[in-house]
């Protein structure tokens, strides 16, 4: 079981915090796709036409920011926390 936390406008789409059960060897991208299916929103909310996460979204795993490659390849462990940010707009 992993946790996916969303902020700002994404929180309104996915909810603030979601528990997702993922199978062995699932990647971060797999978990995000599970989130998409479970919340029944268009995949384009997170993924572009080539199946990558939109460049403007920020994905963190256990508070460490992931590169696009890491999102697709990083295998998850039980208890991991994924954080999903839209572009920041402070200041």
């Amino acid at each position: 079981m992993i946790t996916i936390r969303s902020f700002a406008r994404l929180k309104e789409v996915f909810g603030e915090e979601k528990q997702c059960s993922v199978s062995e060897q699932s990647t971060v991208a797999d978990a995000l796709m599970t989130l998409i299916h479970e919340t029944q929103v268009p995949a384009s909310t997170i993924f572009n036409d080539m199946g990558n996460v939109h460049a403007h979204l920020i994905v963190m795993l256990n508070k460490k920011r992931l590169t696009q490659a890491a999102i697709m390849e990083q295998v998850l462990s039980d208890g991991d926390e994924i954080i999903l940010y839209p572009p920041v707009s402070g200041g």
Partner: protein
Amino acid sequence: MITIQKEDVDILRLIQDAKSKHTGAMSLFIGTVRDDGIEALDFECHLDIAEENLHEIADQAKESFHLVTVDIIHRIGTLSLTDTILVILVTAGHRKEAIEGCSWILERIKETVPIWKKDILKDGHHWHD
């Protein structure tokens, strides 16, 4: 002082506390709520990451621009027109470092720190991103 808070900022106190005979320049940035056809702005953040980021930015700025002190206060919650949003106060030996350092800090905050703003409109809201 580097913090994220709901409360307003005592800017004059901040300036007074930062004055020192060892510095010859202060640079102050105050971001406020502008009337872009909105009722208010609402700010949300990922608190622990955001504060960590602000400290990292301040440390980098001190090193890069030889700043003596850095104060960064960003407010969250719902802010009305003209309210203070963000205060950056830096001190340095000379004006060039102070002005450039203050500006660098502001741009880094806008680019990286997990804070988000939402326009509060008469008939709903709209996230900035």
